[in-house]
């Protein structure tokens, strides 16, 4: 796999807003690459830069080795799936799909056969002569895809293509997109704010915020080893525990003191030294909870706690427990028939524990990122909301 679509030091400003700042990115041929981030992070601008609808103020964009920075959109071998699909309302499905080839003045027999092939690919041969206003959301999207793919672009740019669909349809279309990618094999550059889509579809993800790239990696890397508190909070849920490195342990591990609880072990891959403040991020599903005290083990962090909130979600339950000054969120999966157990309730005394390998220390922490969490951690001293359900 080689670098196929490259951004070198690209910046784009709109008035006083820095939409994209010094972004360097390399997308490999044939991969599904997602730009993931909240609204306003610059991901859509990146897409438009790739498509040619915006010119960067600084930097170059290369496609397959060729510099396309100054090429207008109609001369680039990339095609875009717009969020609103942008199907031409006065043309039928067939005419929409044929548009790119018509404009390129391909011979009629070629156009006809290619259009039929596309219609077959998206399974809409029966609706070929309908106008877009008679189509459902999913159908419109398929037409948009066919209209783009028929031109055999080198990269397909997708701008939040599933945003307008409802949940079930979104899940189905995600699978379809995956299938189409497998069949056709071209490079996808996919923009979304929905981490589920990004994680489910992508080979690699770039998490963006405020015009910059926070982290690039595979979905697993992004989830299990976030580099900044933004990534940790934006993807999934996590606990942010504030403390200090109190010493080293066994080379690769550090001892942390967090909120008065000493001796918490954590894998230290960032060489943070003793005495430095640190934020421990541990994902709720990595924390275990039970009424009985667990076995003590070498790298196991465990502490007694009291249950403060419980939310039953069907396949899982979320607990918020308090251990001294620490408040920890726990996610527990019900792998056995739940009604057989005696459920853990409010104010029950419990034990929580996690393995030292399962947390990560953050170099860059911002309090504002906590707002990204589904339910932000409450500080010690704040009143109980009591919003738990049993």
């Amino acid at each position: 796999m080689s670098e196929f679509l490259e951004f070198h030091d690209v910046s784009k400003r709109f008035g006083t807003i820095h939409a994209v700042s010094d972004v360097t990115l390399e997308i490999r041929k044939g991969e599904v690459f997602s730009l993931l981030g909240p609204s306003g992070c610059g991901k859509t601008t990146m897409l438009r830069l790739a498509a040619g609808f915006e010119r960067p103020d600084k930097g170059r964009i290369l496609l397959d080795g060729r510099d396309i920075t100054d090429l207008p959109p109609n001369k680039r071998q990339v095609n875009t799936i717009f969020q609103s699909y942008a199907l031409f309302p006065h043309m039928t499905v067939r005419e929409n799909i044929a548009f790119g080839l018509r404009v390129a003045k391909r011979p009629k027999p070629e156009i006809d056969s290619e259009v039929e092939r596309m219609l077959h690919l998206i399974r809409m041969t029966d609706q070929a002569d309908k106008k877009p206003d008679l189509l459902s959301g999913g159908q419109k999207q398929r037409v948009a895809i066919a209209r783009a793919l028929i031109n055999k672009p080198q990269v397909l740019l997708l701008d939040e293509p599933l945003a307008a669909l409802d949940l079930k349809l979104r899940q189905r279309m995600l699978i379809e997109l995956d299938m189409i990618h497998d069949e056709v094999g071209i490079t996808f550059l996919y923009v979304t704010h929905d981490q589920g889509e990004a994680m489910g579809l992508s080979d690699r993800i770039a998490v963006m915020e405020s015009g910059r790239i926070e982290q690039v990696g595979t979905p697993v890397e992004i989830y299990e080893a976030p580099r900044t508190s933004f990534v940790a909070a934006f993807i999934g849920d996590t606990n942010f525990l504030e403390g200090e490195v109190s010493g080293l342990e066994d080379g690769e591990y550090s001892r942390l003191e967090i909120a008065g609880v000493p001796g918490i072990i954590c894998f230290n891959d960032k060489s943070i030294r003793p005495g430095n403040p640190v934020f421990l991020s541990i994902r709720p599903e990595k924390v275990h909870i039970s009424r009985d005290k667990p076995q003590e083990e070498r790298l196991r962090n465990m502490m007694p706690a009291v249950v403060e909130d419980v939310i039953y979600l069907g396949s899982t339950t979320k607990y918020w427990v308090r251990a001294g000054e620490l408040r920890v969120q726990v996610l527990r999966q019900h792998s056995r028939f739940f009604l057989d157990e005696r459920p853990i309730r409010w104010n029950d005394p419990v034990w929580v524990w996690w393995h030292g390998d399962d947390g990560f220390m953050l170099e860059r922490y911002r309090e504002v990122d906590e707002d990204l969490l589904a339910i932000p951690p409450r500080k010690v001293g704040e009143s109980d909301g009591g919003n738990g359900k049993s």
Partner: protein
Amino acid sequence: MKADTRKKLQEALVSSPSLLWLGLFFLFPTLLVFVLALRPANPYGGIGQGWTLENLRRLADPSYLEVARRTLEISLVTTVICLLLAVPIGYYLARVSLKWRNLFLMLIIIPFWTNFLIRVFAWKVLLHPEGPIKHILVFLGLVGPQTSLLYNAGAVVLVSVYTFLPFTILPIYAAADKFDFQLLEAARDLGARKFQAFRRIFLPGIRRGLFTAILFVFIPALGSYVIPDIVGGPGGELIGNKIAQRVFVDRNLPLASAISAVLILSVLAPLAAVLFLQRKDERPEIL
């Protein structure tokens, strides 16, 4: 059933004032024109008794045919010029920021607030042989000192375009405002050059506005009276002038009716065509 008839009664009640008034003072007189075309004139300048085809026979006279041809030609030319100017303007207004847009729209509408006669008169002054424009053009060597800018078909077209242009700009702008410009991006993304996108995507996209614009230029232009009267001269006479001449000079009301009947028919044709084309696009809206 009761609620249904009550509703129908309500509807009739609310609709009746306007229906009655317009029926009496618009529909009925229009139909009357066709009837009176078949009557002779009486010597006192009124309408005579009995029926005759004399008026229709007179219409076949070559001078009338010439005027009709000229009217059609001038109306078409005016319409085309107005469209060629209004489409770029409508496009520009729909894309520019709100602040500028309101300013430009206001600037375009303001001349409309002035009296129509006065504006035509202003052009008469401007195009006058001793007037400023003539001086400039002679100075630039574009016309000879003998050419008259006034009192010909060209002057009629110029002033007609001037008069009808705002009526073309507004509906086209309204349609362009509703147009999804991302469609143009999609077209470019798929390989179309700017002009191709404009022709294949933008123009069809605003076709409702185009139809309305054509309606608001072509039809009034066919019935032009004041403009040819003030700046047209004998070489720029249109059907409207002929009608007026029959009424005020000859006092021949039935003949004027006959000419008017022909004008009504020739107005109904494009009107019906446009309405038909609009209905083909499913929902007929006001614009």
